[in-house]
């Protein structure tokens, strides 16, 4: 970095005349708070002023701007100003900045925080209501297309369907399996810890069996699938939207719902029960391993207790939710993807929304199922 002289201004007053001599480098890089105060120089009763810039080593628009502002301020105060020692380049610069001096509006003032809070609350509420309405619209559209397709099943695209089943189902096996197994372990350990106080260790099997089959298996699967596949659907369809691929499909007479949404929705609905079943098995296996390790319950005892304590309905109560959760996750994922506007950042925003919304809906639906099952006495 070249150590050029700092910008300085020397002021001398003589009766009613003011003389300002500038030295140093008046550039954007060198101007500091002191130099920036130049335009605020007080005329102090002077009638005439001399601004001498002959000794200035270098100048750019920032320096030219300060000089221009100084002259303007002094002239507004009724002082006659003469600028001395300017070269052609400096004169050109000062002329350029003078031409572009226009009053700018100040940045808009933010609202009163209380008002802003109410405004935000209101607009967020309206936003949620609109979102819900649009989602129901999209649900209707998807159902119509599905019904239409069920009369013409040959229009279904098997390659796309199987590819989505592989990606959302088969490829999810490791992560779903691992998490289910670990949750089975945790459930058994916590249950054993509490139940041992009553000498009722064997009921740990009931806890693990009912807990995993009815709730944990399917819920964990749904949450993992929402995070893994629901977000992927949004990102894939959203990227296609950004690339105008969706528009191209429409123009070519292809129905994006039929081509993009149906294979994803159907594919996920087909694999989700299988994933949930797999999750159930591994959850129970986790519980069994823990029971054997800490409770001295043998595998045989575990299985017999499971068979006695857990009715087959518990299993079905879990599995029956799988296609419905799958439908909701795929629907929300595709819907948010189609809502992407033509910018890259909206892909990210919609993907986040898709995951949050589908997990929220899955848990709300799960609560609904719990109430329904308790009313039905299952």
């Amino acid at each position: 970095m070249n150590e050029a002289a700092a910008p300085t201004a020397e002021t001398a007053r003589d009766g009613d005349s003011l003389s300002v001599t500038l030295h140093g480098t008046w550039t954007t890089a060198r101007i500091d708070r002191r130099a920036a105060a130049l335009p605020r120089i007080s005329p102090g009763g002077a009638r005439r002023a001399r601004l001498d810039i002959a000794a200035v080593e270098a100048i750019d628009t920032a320096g030219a701007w300060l000089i221009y502002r100084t002259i303007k301020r002094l002239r507004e105060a009724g002082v006659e100003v003469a600028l001395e020692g300017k070269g052609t380049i400096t004169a050109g610069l000062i002329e350029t900045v003078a031409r572009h001096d226009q009053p700018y509006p100040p940045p808009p003032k933010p609202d009163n925080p209380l008002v802003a809070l109410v405004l935000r609350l209101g607009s967020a509420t309206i936003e949620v209501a609109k979102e819900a309405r649009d989602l129901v619209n999209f649900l209707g559209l998807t159902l119509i297309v599905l019904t239409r397709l069920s009369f013409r099943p040959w229009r279904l695209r098997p390659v796309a369907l199987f590819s989505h089943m592989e990606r959302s189902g088969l490829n999810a096996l490791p992560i779903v399996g691992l998490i289910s197994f670990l949750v089975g372990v945790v459930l058994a350990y916590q249950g054993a810890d509490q139940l041992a106080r009553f000498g009722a260790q064997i009921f740990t099997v009931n806890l693990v069996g009912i807990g995993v089959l009815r709730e944990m298996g399917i819920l964990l699967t749904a949450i993992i699938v929402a995070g893994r596949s629901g977000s992927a659907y949004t990102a894939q369809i959203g990227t296609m939207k950004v690339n105008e691929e969706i528009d191209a499909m429409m123009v070519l007479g292809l129905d994006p719902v039929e081509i993009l949404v149906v294979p994803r929705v159907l594919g996920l609905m087909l694999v989700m029960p299988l994933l949930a079943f797999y999750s159930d098995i591994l959850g129970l296996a986790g519980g069994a391993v823990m029971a054997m390790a800490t409770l001295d319950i043998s595998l045989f005892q575990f299985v017999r207790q499971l068979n006695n304590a857990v009715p087959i309905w518990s299993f079905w109560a879990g599995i029956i939710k799988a296609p419905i959760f799958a439908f909701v996750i795929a629907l929300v994922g595709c819907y948010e993807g189609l809502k992407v506007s033509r910018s890259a950042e909206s892909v990210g925003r919609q993907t986040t929304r898709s995951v949050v919304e589908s997990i929220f809906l899955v848990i709300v639906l799960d609560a609904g199922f719990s109430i329904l099952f308790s009313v039905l006495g299952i």
Partner: protein
Amino acid sequence: MAEDAEPIIRIAGLVTRFGPQTVHDGVDLAVRRGEILGIVGGSGTGKSVLMRCIIGLIRPVAGTIEVFGQDIRKLDDAGWRALRRRWGVLFQDGALFSSLTVGQNVEAPLKEHTKLPPDLRREIADLKISLVGLSPEAANKYPSELSGGMRKRAGLARALALDPEILFLDEPTAGLDPIGAAAFDDLIGRLQRSLGLTVVMVTHDLDSLYAICDRIAVLIDKRVKVGTIESLMREESPWIQDYFKGPRGRAAAQTAERVEAGHRALQGTDRGTKD
């Protein structure tokens, strides 16, 4: 403009490679202080790559790049910092920070690199926004609220924020309508003259080449041929012949002639505006 002026950028023997694909193989190029140099070439010949090498976003495999007489491959962090405030870069779509308003975008480099007090910083930003021909209201808008042409102007204002000595432009007129493109060319020419800039621009736009470029660097066969349009026309390379003498090239040349004639008629004398 002196012919033998000290080059502000000097590239020698530049080689860049992406995997097995060689983009440049021995590029030599000197950019003179105060000129507008246009870099042209067919699609995929590495025009943008060449620019990205100079501004340090891509490391070449071999060769030297000197900017302001410093070899950029030997610079340390402080050297890079000092160098980066002496040039401004306009990316293809402006590359404005989407979370900041236009005004804040222009202020961003000033905030990072200078000791200007906030009110003066704001004034300088407003001045730059006005210099690139944006209306005062644009300062408080976010990039997403601007049209493509306005985003480019705002990007140019940010590139000019630190009063750079060199301005790099990546396809400044791509995506603009012909009137907007001509206005942008005119803007660049005027800024270059009034601020004494050296401009390096990657472009496809023949009208820009005729209107404002002093010299042209043509990327061809992984090397560079430099010259004025007249001298390049005498080259035998079929690509250059097609480029300048094809229908679009001829049309641009005619437009340039008409504009020139108009200028002469208006000014009475030669176009001696460049001092």
